[in-house]
């Protein structure tokens, strides 16, 4: 193989750049509030990381410039609703950095995906703020007002397609009667898909996790769809709604908390895909990426142990 070798800092930076298309789509549909969230997240992340490194008595500069904390911050910022109040992201990122990463010894030692740990913490603690997405494009001033609590949020929010599906189905309406096609969700997912393909081509991520994860989503949703197409949405719906593409290419592929053997990655990705659909359909929360990823993070040592490749001569 002749590939230009990247160092760890460059890898982190490349992953951040690859998010640009998806973020662009979010900005196009929801407004510049997305940038406010990212900005808040990065500042919080850097300050928390620096403080904690100081407490741990380790060197601050190399850890700050390695780009990992910025990547975690961006991932969390684009996962939460863009009009969530400022303290949501500040709290979430601090939690992610402290309890998701630094408490285990910093980069490379965390068993869980820090961004998803932060997300799960926020979703469980503040379910209301975490499920109110903007119904429409918000101007900068509107966004500032909403995020910093200067004006009331009412009338600006709407349900996401996953949320909508869940509430309508419980009211006994069949899928065919629902208007489910969310153009914003579609484009955001396409944005992340393209970014992911870039990472694959640059060989920054391996193909196993994204491919098996998407396959897991398709297999599980198709199985349910075949059982009852009135009650369960199609695979296409699951692929282009919620954080499916973000999870497949950017979240489940976090190398530190993912399985590290070639066949282990296939199992890991596939099971996340299956779990995403199961939790979406049968769970209490609309989206399921964070829980699916965290659950599989726990199983990584086991998967890695049983999927060791055959060693030469053994």
């Amino acid at each position, binding site marked *: *193989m002749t590939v230009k070798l990247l*160092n*760890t800092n460059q890898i982190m930076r490349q992953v951040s750049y690859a998010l640009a298309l998806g973020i662009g789509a979010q900005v196009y549909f929801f407004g510049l509030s997305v940038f406010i969230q990212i900005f808040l997240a990065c500042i919080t992340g850097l300050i928390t990381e620096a403080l904690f490194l100081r407490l741990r008595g380790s060197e601050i500069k190399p850890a700050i410039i390695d780009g990992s904390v910025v990547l975690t911050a961006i991932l969390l910022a684009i996962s939460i609703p863009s009009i969530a109040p400022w303290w949501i992201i500040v709290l979430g990122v601090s939690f992610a950095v402290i309890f998701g990463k630094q408490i285990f010894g*910093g980069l*490379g*030692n965390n068993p869980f995906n820090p961004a998803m740990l932060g997300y799960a913490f926020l979703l469980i603690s503040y379910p209301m703020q975490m499920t109110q997405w903007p119904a429409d494009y918000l101007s900068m001033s509107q966004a500032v007002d909403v995020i910093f609590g200067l004006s009331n949020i009412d009338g600006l929010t709407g349900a996401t397609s996953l949320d909508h599906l869940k509430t309508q189905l419980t009211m006994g309406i069949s899928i065919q009667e629902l208007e489910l096609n969310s153009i914003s969700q579609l484009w955001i997912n396409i944005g992340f898909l393209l970014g992911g393909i870039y990472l694959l081509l640059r060989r920054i991520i391996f193909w196993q996790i994204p491919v098996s994860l998407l396959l897991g989503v398709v297999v599980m949703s198709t199985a349910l769809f075949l059982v009852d197409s009135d009650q369960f949405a199609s695979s296409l719906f699951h692929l282009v709604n919620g954080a499916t593409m973000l999870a497949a290419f950017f979240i489940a592929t976090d190398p530190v908390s993912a399985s*590290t053997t070639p066949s282990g990655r296939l199992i890991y990705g596939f099971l996340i895909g299956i779990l995403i659909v199961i939790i979406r359909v049968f769970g209490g929360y609309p989206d399921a990426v964070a829980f699916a990823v965290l659950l599989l993070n726990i199983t990584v040592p086991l998967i890695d142990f049983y999927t060791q490749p055959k*060693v*030469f*001569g053994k």
Partner: protein
Amino acid sequence: MLKYKYNGGLKLDNPYPINEIDLIRIPLPDKVVLPMQQRIGNQAIPIVSVGERVLTGQIIATIDDQRCAPVHASISGTVVAIDEHVYAHKSGLKGLCVTIESDGKDEWVDTSIGCTEHYENCTANTIYNKIRVSGIVGMGGAGFPTHTKVRLAEGCHTLIVNATECEPGITCDAALMEAYPTKVIRGVEVLLYICKAERAIVAIEDDKQDAIKALKKFCNNENITIEVMPTKYTSGAEKLLLKSLLGIEVPTGKFASDVGVLCQNVGTVVAMFDAVVENRPLISRAVTVAGSAVKESKNFQVRLGASYDYLLSFVDIKEGSHKISMNGLMMGIELDSTNYSVSKNTNCVFIDQLEESKPTKECIRCGLCNTVCPVDLLPQELYWYSKSKNIDKAVEYNLLDCIECNCCSYVCPSQIPLVNYYQHSKALYKQQVKEKQQTENARERFEFRELRLERNKRERAEMMEAKKIALKEKMAKDKAQKAVIEAALERVNTAKSAQGSQDDG
């Protein structure tokens, strides 16, 4: 193209390309320093003394160890010292060396001993002996005595000649093949004759087109095939070469000879040809001198024991601070100076411009390392357990199968010197095994002592018991005897008194 391949490995460009590969013979050095310690085994014992005049090709040290070969004087002159020098080895340890000052005449000793006629008129044993007394060892870097290796592989079906050049940047084998293609082919024939293999494969990488052409031109033996392989790093490792050529995977802990294959480096084949056919012991070798600080990389045929400084005086070296290393960029070792001498397994000396070392980052388990590992290990797991000194777990993840090729360290985005960790862990493991053995021995000794004391006690008790019984018996017997005597006395007394009363009466 090859039918088989192994996983992993790296396609690396030659960092120091040479336009025209040439083997340059350099003048005799004024002085040579010959180490007595070889790659493995015990130190050879000098059989010359200071002040003695020696001739080129004369044996100056020997040892009765199948893992070692005798040492020859590589120039004629006077032995000026037999003392300790630091070896060109990672350990930086000192060892005994014989220093010879040249008289400039290069006068040869009569080396026509052993098999002096055509080799086909000699028995394999005679040729083995000839190879041994000529001091031939593996020239690819392993330095294992050739006679022992060939003897171990007796009855093999295939002979593989490793002409892949183990690492990028080294071109001494290519230079040797271009300079002496007939010696290579004839040498292979000699080897085929003694190891009795049916066929020989000369494995050569496709970046050495001139050498391939030269060999093909002179090879008219139908039992010898010239196999051109894609250039990939670690193909030169014996077991991987075997896998790519024959599809055979040598099991862990076994050797090529166990699957009926003999593997020899091309330099060794040439040295063996010189010894068996031309009666010339191993006194010189081809060495590549290259590096980013060397203006033009060159290959030299140089006498063993010549100093690196002498070798380097034949190339132009750029100003500045240098990094000196030998035996390659990937698996070689870094040296602190050029104050060393060429030995039988020195295939290259690299002088590089000193670069700022890149800072090491944490491992992010990206797994790039396991895609390049030629023996399919999980370097990231080995690193994890080595770092935390969890040696047992690292061994469970097959630490001991690591061939230390450094492919993983090369691609690591966090620039972690992975192989250093593995070497450290291996050393710790060895220590652990040794200590375990020692405790085991101590326990056995202790238990035996306990057993012995117990046995002594028991034996003594038994003896006492026996004595007691014997005493009792004796006493009883004495008593009985006493009674008998007493009874007799009684009778006598009665008789006496009866007589007395009769006499009286």
